[in-house]
C-alpha cells in the first residue's frame, strides 16, 4: 500500500537540500549570474561542515556541547561556500569570464574537493576511525520537538524534522519576500534584467552581483550540509550526494524563479526523487530508473511551457549569463 504518512516526511527531507540549493541559485540568477557551480558549492559546503565537526568530535569525544556542535559545522560550511561564491564572482564579475565555463570548472573543483577530503580526511588527519561517521553531531541536527511523537500523524507530518528544515523554509520565504517586496529586491532584479539601466539609475551593479551570488552560495552550501547531517545521519560517502545539485538548478526553472513556490515544489521534487521506492513495480527494477527521470522531464515541460506562454514575469532574468562591462554598449 502507498503509505502517505511515511512518504511525505521522507519527501520533505529529500526536498530540503534542493530547496536550499534552488533558493541560493534563484538569488544568484536574479543578479544575472547563471551559477552552474552550485553542485560543486553544495559539495564544498557539505565537506567543510563535515571537516569542522570531524575535528570537533575528535577533540571532545563524548561530551559534546550541542550548541557548539551545531555552530561549528554551520560556520565552516558557510565559510567554505562563501569562498566558492567569492571565487565565482571574482572570475565572472571582476574578470568577466564566461559564466558557463567558470561554473562548470567550479563544479569539477567542488565535487573533487568534496570527494577528495571525504575519502582522505581520515588518512590525512591520521586518526584510526574506519569512516567518517558523525552520529553525535547529526543527532544534534536531527533533534526534533519532543511533543512531535505525541501528536500522531500531525506531529509526524509537521514537527518531526530537525531545526535546519524549518530554517530552510524560512530562508526561502524570506528570499521571496525580499525579492518581491523590498527595494533591495527591486534593485537586484533590475541588475539581473538590465545592468546598464540599473547602473544608470545609480545601483552599484558589481556590489549587488557579488552580494547576491555570495549569499546564494552560502544558502546552497547549507543544502549540502543538511544532506550530510540530517538526511544521511552524519555519514559521509563519496558521491552519495549525486546529482542533487543539478536538480536544484532544475527546481529554479520549475519554480519560475520564485523561492516561495520552491517550498512546495521542492517537496514535490523530493517526492519524485523517491517515489520509485513506494510504487510497487514487482520484480521489474528497470521501471524505477524511469521514475527517477520524472523531475527532469517535469522541469523541461515547465521550461517549454513558460517560454511558449511568454509571460513577462515567468521569464529568466534577461541578462542571465552575460557579464557586465560598463564601457561596452
Amino acid at each position: 500500500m502507498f503509505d502517505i504518512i511515511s512518504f511525505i516526511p521522507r519527501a520533505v527531507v529529500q526536498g530540503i537540500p534542493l530547496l536550499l540549493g534552488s533558493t541560493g541559485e534563484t538569488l544568484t540568477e536574479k543578479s544575472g549570474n547563471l551559477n552552474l557551480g552550485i553542485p560543486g558549492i553544495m559539495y564544498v559546503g557539505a565537506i567543510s561542515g563535515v571537516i569542522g565537526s570531524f575535528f570537533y568530535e575528535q577533540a571532545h569525544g563524548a561530551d559534546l556541547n550541542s550548541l557548539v556542535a551545531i555552530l561549528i559545522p554551520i560556520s565552516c560550511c558557510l565559510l567554505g561556500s562563501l569562498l566558492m561564491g567569492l571565487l565565482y564572482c571574482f572570475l565572472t564579475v571582476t574578470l568577466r569570464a564566461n559564466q558557463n565555463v567558470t561554473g562548470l570548472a567550479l563544479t569539477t573543483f567542488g565535487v573533487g574537493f568534496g570527494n577528495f577530503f571525504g575519502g582522505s580526511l581520515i588518512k590525512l588527519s591520521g586518526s584510526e576511525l574506519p569512516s567518517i561517521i558523525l552520529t553525535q553531531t547529526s543527532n544534534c541536527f536531527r533533534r526534533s520537538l519532543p511533543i512531535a511523537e505525541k501528536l500522531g500523524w500531525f506531529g509526524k507530518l509537521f514537527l518531526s524534522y530537525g531545526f535546519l528544515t524549518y530554517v530552510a523554509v524560512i530562508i526561502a520565504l524570506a528570499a521571496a519576500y525580499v525579492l518581491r517586496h523590498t527595494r533591495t529586491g527591486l534593485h537586484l532584479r533590475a541588475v539581473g534584467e538590465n545592468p546598464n539601466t540599473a547602473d544608470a539609475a545609480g545601483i552599484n551593479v558589481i556590489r549587488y552581483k557579488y552580494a547576491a551570488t555570495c549569499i546564494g552560495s552560502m544558502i546552497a552550501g547549507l543544502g549540502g550540509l543538511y544532506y550530510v547531517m540530517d538526511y544521511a545521519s552524519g555519514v559521509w560517502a563519496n558521491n552519495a550526494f549525486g546529482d542533487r545539485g543539478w536538480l536544484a538548478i532544475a527546481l529554479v526553472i520549475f519554480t519560475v524563479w520564485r523561492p516561495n513556490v520552491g517550498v512546495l515544489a521542492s517537496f514535490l521534487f523530493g517526492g519524485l526523487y523517491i517515489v520509485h521506492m513506494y510504487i510497487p513495480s514487482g520484480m521489474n527494477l528497470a521501471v524505477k530508473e524511469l521514475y527517477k527521470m520524472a523531475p527532469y522531464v517535469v522541469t523541461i515541460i515547465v521550461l517549454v511551457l513558460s517560454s511558449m506562454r511568454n509571460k513577462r514575469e515567468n521569464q529568466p532574468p534577461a541578462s542571465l549569463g552575460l557579464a557586465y562591462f560598463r564601457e561596452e554598449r
Partner: protein
Amino acid sequence: MNKAQRSPLFHISKRGSLPWYAVWGIRGGSLLVALVFCGVITSLVTGENPLQVYAAIFEGSFGTTRKFWVLLQNISMLLCVSLAVTPAFRMRCWNLGGEGQALAGALAAAACMICLRNSLPNWAVILLMIVTSILAGAIWAGIPAFFKAKWNTNETLFTLMMNYVATQLVAYYCVVWESPKGSGQIGIINPNTHIGWFPQIGPYKYLLNILIVAAVCIAMYVYLSYSKHGYEIAVVGESERTARYVGIKVNRVIIRTMLLSGALCGLAGLLLVGSTNHTLTPNIVEGRGFTAVMVSWLAKFNPIWMILTSFLLVFLGRGAGEIATNFSLNQSFGDILTGIILFFIIGSEFFINYEIHFRGSGKKEG
C-alpha cells in the same frame, strides 16, 4: 566633502587586439603559474618534493606505451565531443547537453548490437549502428534546438536537463538488458561473436578512433572557417539581427547547427560503445560533455587549438590520477588540480581582452 578631482586608482578598458604570440604568451604564463601552484599544493598534501610530483604527472601519460595509447584515446574522445559542441558555441548557443547526446548515441549503438545480433550479419549491424547512433544524438540535440528556434526556450537549461533524461534512459536499459541476470549491468556485449565491434587496425586497439576523430577535426575546421554554413554560424553568433537583416534564416541555422552538434556527439557515443568499451553504462561518457565545454572555450572555439587544449586537460587528469595512485590519495585529487588550473586559465582571459591603466601612468582621462 572632498571636491578635489581624483581619478580612480586604475581603470579598465577593452583591448583592441593583441598579436597572437602575446595572447598565447599570457595563456602559457597562466598555465605555468597554475602548474607551480598545483605543485606546491600537492607537495603540501603529500609532503613530497615538487619535482617528483611533476615527474609523476609526466609518468601518468608517457610512462609506458600502453599509457601513451590510453592518453591518445582519451584525447580523441574528448576532442570528438568538444568538436561536436563547438559549432553551437560559435553561434552563442550554449549546448551543455554533450553528455546526453553522446549517451543517446551510445544507447542506440548498444541497442543495435544487442537486438540485431541474431538476425543480421556483422556488417549490417555496424552500418545500422552508425546510422542510428548519429541520428539519436541529432534528435537529442534537435529537441532543444526546435524549441529554441520556435519559442526561444533557454537552450542552456534545456540541454542540461536532457543530460539526465538520457542518463536515466540508459540506466533503464542497463537493467532491461542486464547480463548476467540480476547484476544490473550489461557487461561486455557479444564477447564471443564480436558482432558490432568495430574492426581493429593492426595491433592498435585505439587507432581507428584516433583516425576518425582526426578526420572530423580537420573537416570541422574547414566547415567552420571556409564554408558558407560556417560563415552563417559566425554571423548568427555575432548578432542575430544582422543575420536576419542580411537574409540568413536564423531559425534554420540554429536547428541545423544543433543537429550537427548532436550528430557528432552521437558519433562520440558510437565510438565509445562500438570501438572502445563494447558495453553501455550510464556514466560511459565520463563527464566529457562538460569537460568539452571548457576544452572548446579554452581554444576559443578553434578546432585545431582544441587538440592542444584537450591534450592539456587529459594530460593533467591522467597525471593527477598517477599522483593519487603513487601517494595513495583519493582519485578525486585530479579534479581539484584540474579545477585550479582551469581557474587560472579562465582568469587569464581577462588580461587578453582587457587592459588595466593605473593612475599616473600614461595618458590622462578627460
